[in-house]
């Protein structure tokens, strides 16, 4: 059967790269004594499907990984948490009837970053969401390109001390750390990217965004292929 583990990535674990993360999970599952399905072939490996990669340094309370195993759902969470590294604690386990393909289906995520000075400019900052075009410089491997990021922004909200943004994530991604730094530069306020959290992620269903948890809950009840 398929289990999806919703977990944190926080504390020291936020510095772990996507590849190294996989190693932490396979080791934790072995410590827990779980029998997880392996791939076939010449060099079999434990099949753990991670969600969309999170850039280094960003914390999260909404990460999802998928495995096939016969360990009962309740036992899975308890035993996992008994031997999990600090920072990768499990939050909840789902038992969808079909493979949810979390990484492939994810289209957006919500983030929150500590800020100071954005309250006074709330109108302009939040107004960015209505812009039809927003050119942003993006640096990748030493090269700078300009990209129109307007289509990648779903929401921007300023709260006392925090700035929350909802951005494209998945196959098309806008890096939240770069984006909030860009906003801070544009409107002259401060953000603290060492305090940047991801707290929600979404799939698109019938044209609207649906929280990953709701989506997985639905898959637990019915294996009807949901429309994308």
């Amino acid at each position, binding site marked *: 059967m398929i289990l999806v583990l919703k977990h944190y990535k926080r504390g*020291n674990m936020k*510095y*772990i790269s996507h590849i190294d993360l996989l190693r932490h999970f396979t080791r934790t599952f072995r410590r827990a004594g779980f029998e997880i399905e392996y791939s076939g072939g010449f060099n079999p490996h434990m099949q753990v499907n991670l969600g969309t990669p999170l850039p280094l340094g960003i914390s999260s309370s909404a990460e999802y990984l998928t495995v096939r195993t016969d360990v009962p759902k309740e036992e899975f969470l308890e035993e996992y948490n008994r031997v999990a*590294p600090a*920072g990768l604690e499990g939050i909840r386990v789902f038992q969808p009837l079909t493979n949810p393909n979390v990484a492939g289906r994810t289209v957006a995520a919500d983030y929150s970053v500590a800020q100071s000075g954005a309250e006074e400019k709330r109108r302009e900052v939040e107004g960015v969401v209505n812009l039809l075009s927003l050119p942003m410089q993006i640096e990748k491997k030493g090269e700078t390109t300009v990209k129109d990021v307007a289509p990648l922004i779903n929401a921007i909200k300023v709260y006392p001390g925090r700035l929350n943004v909802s951005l494209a994530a998945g196959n098309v991604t806008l890096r939240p750390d770069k984006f909030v730094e860009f906003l801070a530069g544009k409107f002259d306020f401060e953000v603290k990217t060492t305090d940047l959290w991801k707290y929600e992620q979404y799939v698109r269903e019938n044209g609207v965004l649906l929280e990953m948890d709701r989506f997985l809950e639905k898959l637990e009840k019915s294996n009807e292929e949901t429309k994308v």
Partner: protein
Amino acid sequence: MTFEEILLKSEKPARYSGGEYNTPDMEKPCDVRFCICMPDLYEVGMSNLGLKILYHVLNDQKNVVCERCFAPALDFRALLKENGIPLMSLETKKPLKEFDMVGFSVQYEMLFTGVLYVMDAAGIPFYAKDRGEEYPIICGGGPSTINPEPIADFFDLFMVGEGEEMIVKLTDLYAKCKAAGKTKTQFLALAEKIEGIYVPSRNTPKRRKIVKKAVVRDFEHCFYPTAQLMPTLEVVHDRAMLELYRGCQNGCRFCQAGYYYRPIRFRSKNTVKALIERLIRETGFDEISLGSLSTGDYPYLEELLSEVNPICAKARVHLALPSLRLSSFKKEFAESSRKSSLTFAPEAGTQRLRDVINKNVTEEEIRTGLSAAFDQGYNSVKLYFMLGLPTETDEDLMGIVELVKMIRRLYHENHKGGVNISVSCSVFIPKPGTPFQWERQITREEMSRKQFLLKDELRKVKGASFHYHDRETSELEAIFARGDRALAPLIELAYKKGAMFDSWTEHFHYEIWEEAMAELKIDKEKYLGEQPLDKPLPWEFIDIGVTRAFLLREREKAYRAECTLGCDKGCQGCGAMALALCDEVKKK
């Protein structure tokens, strides 16, 4: 910038963040704060079994908290410097300077500059004499303490030999001295009385006292951590390591480890099995390496494998058997190993030279072993040799070529397709504690001539490839290996001129060393040439158990190309038994 911001700017923040699974309690009240420091990158340091053993041994003490620190990569070092932050421990981010004791694990000579690099980043003066009461006690340990003289002036004390029991005696003493308000000098005077502890300021070339290497007498019951620290990022040896035994019965005459780790003490099959089961549960590693100097010589290997193979298969854990002798290559072992390439080390090309170095492997054994391996489906062989061995001639080098040709023929007798034979040649380095400790090292010109001769000959053999060690590194290693206290200023000067991370070829600049030697008027020939028999060598105050008389006897036998049997055929009287009984001897 805050520390966290610096972390995010560095190449690999996880190297410095800490927070590994199985980290012991860092908050407990304690009398001694110890920091184990490996002057190399996290990925290398966290691959070291000795470091993990000592780390957990110390944290297992009621009154000690032990943390870690590794050498920062150059990018992180620059960030620390820019922001005026001293090097800190991984666990609680405490500056190294504020610890009671800092213990450097010096694995080999090329890390000497690494020690200074770390001290520099931590704001600790290099020389022991320049450090007052406010600085931690700087301790050294690890295999290179067989001759600590080149770095002696930098350290307050060395732990010579096996650390797991000695280090506890040391921290106990420290706690007592601290409670009694004793000074550093008073502490060092008392520390010197512990077996294995060497205090360079109180034990000088002019006034020598013998330092006896510490050994664990009851290896079967000695501390071994199964709930060991799990590295946060991929490290060089990313697996659990478990020693089957300590010491080595073979007595290869060039091999320092073979003599240094004597006496021979085995872990029983049942203990090893129990430890493997716990390692699987407590670490979750997918590979356990059963290490020892010559794993195939472990007398209970076959029984052990038949019992643990099913356990490992169920948990999907791979058992690695490094350092198998070709003669112990058996079907069962091959199956439990998933390597596609077979590695072994004849070390010399002719039987004569193999007899000189007492590498007890014959061409017949090589044939049988390799035939078996080829039948198993191996089609790739890696061979290790040493160039510049005592009494070596060109005939011996041609022997390497002949051996390679023989292997190729052997493969084609029964198998189709091509076979890859990779030949790797290091340069012989005369090492302290071996029968060859008095020998000369060949010059760089000789090295180059021999290397090119082999290269030309091997080029003509289809399927063969040739790799050889860097000549400059080999020379510097030899200088340090047999160095004395005159080398400390050289290490300091070279470091100041920019020599660091010498163990990484891309950072190694021999010009710096040559320049520094010239400035300090250090004659390298003193260290590279043949050493006199009639004077004690700079390191001979360290008693490793194996006696001078035995080493001299072995040296004579080497010149006569006479072999010495392994200890499994009977005790050869090397002297190590005086430290603890060898299991081979107990049996008889």
